[in-house]
């Protein structure tokens, strides 16, 4: 299962990277969201899968899944939510101000002079 999940994480990264490399602002933003999914899946996978019950002591199981990565992922998910929403709004503000959603046109005249 770890191998399958590694592949899934890889696919998510691939998809995200592909989108991020496109010129369109929306696709780039969606791409970053997918990349962060990939990172979260990978973090969960790397901790080892299905090694016990859900980490709730109320279940009275003998072994539990590693709770630490789950807490980390939760933190990471929430942070990436904050960042993604910021990025999204930044995208649309940029569009409104510069009048383009094509990153090729966002080059800036002063890249070097």
């Amino acid at each position, binding site marked *: 299962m770890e191998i399958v999940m590694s592949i899934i994480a890889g696919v998510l990264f691939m998809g995200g990277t592909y989108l991020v490399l496109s010129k369109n602002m929306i696709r780039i933003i969606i791409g970053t969201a997918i990349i962060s999914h990939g990172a979260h899946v990978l*973090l969960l996978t790397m901790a080892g899968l299905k090694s016990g019950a859900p980490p709730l002591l109320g279940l009275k199981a003998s072994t539990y899944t590693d709770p630490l*990565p789950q807490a980390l992922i939760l933190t990471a998910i929430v942070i990436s939510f904050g960042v993604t929403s910021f990025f999204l709004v930044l995208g649309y503000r940029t569009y409104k101000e510069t009048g383009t959603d094509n990153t090729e046109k966002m080059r800036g005249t002063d890249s070097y002079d």
Partner: protein
Amino acid sequence: MTNLIIWPVLIPLLTGILLLFAPKRVVFQRGLSTVSAAVLLVVNIFIVFTVQQQGIQTLQLGGWQPPFGIVLVTDMLAALLITAAAVVSLPILVFSIYSIGKERERFYFYAFYQFLIAGVMGAFITGDIFNLFVFFEVMLISSYILIVHGGTKKQLRESFKYVLVNVISSAFFVVGVAYLYAVTGTLNMAQLSERIGSLDTGAPILSVIAVLFLIVFGLKGALFPLYFWLPASYAAPPSPIAAIFGALLTKVGIYSIFRTYSMIFTHDTAFTHQLLGILAALTMIIGVIGAVAHQDVKKILVYNVIVAVGFVLFGVSTMTETGYMGAIFYLFHDIIIKGALFLMIGAMITVAGSTHLKEMGGLIKYHPRLGWMFFTAVMALVGVPPLSGFIGKLMLVQGGAEAGQYWIIAVMMASSLLVLYSMIRIFLKGFYGKIKLEKADQYGTTKGLLLPCAFLLTVSVLIGVGAEAVYPLAATAAETLYEPQIYIDAVLKE
């Protein structure tokens, strides 16, 4: 076990939160943030002395013993860096009071500034790799906002790129933590160091992870093939924001490389550190190329930020105690002098109304103090004794010689010369040369802007002249990095 070392994070954090409550009361915003920055400076200096006298300070947050809880660790390196950060944050704040404008002030500028400082402080003192990630995010999100704050076209355009690159690098950071956790099963830096140190035979996967972390931190720290985002985005925001970015943000990335490559990934130095050394040299080269290529004062300075990255990381790559000390000295110096230079450039721009050198000239006639401070700062940057850059550079050369990396020393000296060339050009064309603007034509005044610059410059001179006083601190810091066992003992053994 004291709560002392949480304060560097808490002071700006609390200040920032309090500032959120009354955004429109500008006087309150200014006053509180200035006071808090001053208090922070005092506290951090106190921490330096505490660390010097009592050794590494740790704080087990929530009272949980490491590695299970998060532990804050202030060794001398961290203490020095938080102090340097506090030293620059105060004058830059004062500078921005005079130059940032009411509108930005009313829209939480100071709060974001404080949060940025909190993030930087935390990144320096945390002893947990995931907590480092979280602090990075605090710092980054504040930097995203500061870079776009005001919402001009240029800012929006550049911050889109800036955010994108950093979002990706954050994802890579999580990936790195994931791999590291899979292999070592822990997040605590001291335990990482201990566990990886205990491996007799090489663990090839750790080399891969080390390279991954180099990429992650290199992205934040603008290491050679990863620096592309930096020049335009640092040149976009107003001067005080550019100053705090130039002074601090890349330094956090550098610090992280420093920390991980001196304490954690030491199992395969033949490969990883050689790579780091090569990249550092290339960073210096590309940095000076950029600095020489531009005629825009902000850009020139921004590329010099990249050069400094190369210098410090070269020190790290030597893996010698002298090299480490050189890197520490240089890092400390660079934080302060880059802050000073960005502020002075800011004052220049205020007066000249342009960032381009061809629009400037003869500024020294009406702004002699600014001009001579700038000249001195350039000399400090280049490493002319007795100013602050010298000791760092000397020890970097010594460390490089100890490690036998002569060709990197040559690169370093050559790039120092070009740094001098690029910066003295600003002096020659901006302050010297035909007078372009008579008194009446100037776009702004330097009222209130010179004092912060003077403060930073004074600190720089004091570090250089009083190097003997700073030396034991740097030596302690380097010792801890060179002998990770000291750190491990302080964190894991009570």
